[in-house]
């Protein structure tokens, strides 16, 4: 009996000590992590808007963002507008192996993709994640998203709304295509109403 009490007490004490350590670490790092995420979003929004800035210089990032990007909130949706009237918004949805989050920008007439970027994913490193590399995402710039964008697994994209897929990343490509289409359909009515 005594042995069991010691066992329970030990686990309780250890659990509380470690939890306390985690709470302290969390309190300590949470503001910094939030600021990092905010900065990452700003940097990525400016990249897909194609706004020039110095990525290594914190002040340049802040300055370029406040000068070039307006943040607009409409109901539950927060979206961003550049000086060229292009519109960007955050996207989130299922990938092939876990959630995807990111941002995409469309032209002011809501017809063409201006740029797209992925901020977090759970795809297979080195395979699925190649879809999110900047070099590949350049293929999406200027593509028509009305009625929908198509990623062709076998390649051979010829129409204005088609992009070649990547071999070895077919599932991720399909998930990515669905993410772009469904998120655009979700925000389109809200944005066209407020603009």
């Amino acid at each position: 009996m005594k042995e069991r009490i010691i066992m329970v007490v030990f686990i309780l004490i250890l659990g509380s000590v470690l939890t306390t350590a985690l709470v302290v670490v969390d309190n300590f790092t949470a503001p910094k992590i939030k600021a990092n995420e905010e900065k990452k979003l700003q940097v990525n929004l400016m990249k897909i808007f194609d706004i020039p800035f110095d990525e290594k210089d914190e002040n340049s990032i802040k300055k370029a963002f406040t000068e070039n990007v307006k943040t607009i909130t409409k109901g539950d949706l927060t979206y961003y507008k550049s000086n060229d009237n292009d519109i960007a918004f955050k996207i989130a949805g299922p990938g092939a192996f876990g959630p995807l989050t990111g941002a995409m920008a469309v032209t002011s007439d809501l017809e063409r993709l201006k740029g797209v970027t992925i901020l977090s994913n759970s795809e297979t490193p080195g395979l699925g994640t190649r879809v999110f590399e900047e070099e590949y995402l350049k293929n999406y710039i200027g593509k028509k998203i009305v009625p929908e964008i198509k990623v062709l697994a076998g390649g051979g994209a010829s129409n204005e709304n088609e992009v070649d897929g990547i071999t070895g990343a077919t599932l991720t490509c399909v998930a990515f295509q669905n993410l772009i289409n469904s998120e655009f359909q979700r925000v389109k009515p809200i944005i066209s109403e407020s603009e």
Partner: protein
Amino acid sequence: MSLKNIFGAKGYKVLKNGIWSDHPVCSTTLGICSALAITNKIENAIAMSAGVIFVLILTSLLISTLRKLIPSRVRIITYMIIIATCVTIVDRFLKAYFAPLSAAMGPYIPLIITNCIIMGRAEAFFVQNNTYHSILDAIANGLAYSYSLLAVAVVREFLGFGTVLGITVTPAGWENWVLMALPCGAFFVLGIVLWVIRTLANIELPGAKG
């Protein structure tokens, strides 16, 4: 001055066993999952190794210090929560202060929790030995894990992508072996690495003959 004088006779033996003759990946086949999963790029292997070494050292410190207090019936749960806490702290710390590195390592950091080397060494060594030897053992096993991961990653990145650390080293016209970039390529390369290290280190497996 020899290594034996620096680390003490036992310390030297612990180091030698961990790094070479009782190799965690090659002899006890621990940590195989991550050795297969993340070795298609060298930088991934380096990041994973660094994370594992750090968590091993932290865990060895905590478990060997607490070893006389841990009730044997709940020792596995104790290892688990200690390891999970260490990994979470590393993860948060990297996210806050080394955001680009954390972004590059992505899902690998939480995966360190399930690395059986840490659990295995906790049960086999940290819980029975003093803090000094436990930390030596953690470093030795971490290094052994790192160099076997690197050996696999160098071969796979070179053949699968034609690069070393992201720098193209192959001549124009080089055809990438896509198989090597895919998970199945890891089985071939890791098999060969296991064979080579086992032969060189003269590792005898119980029950294996010839």
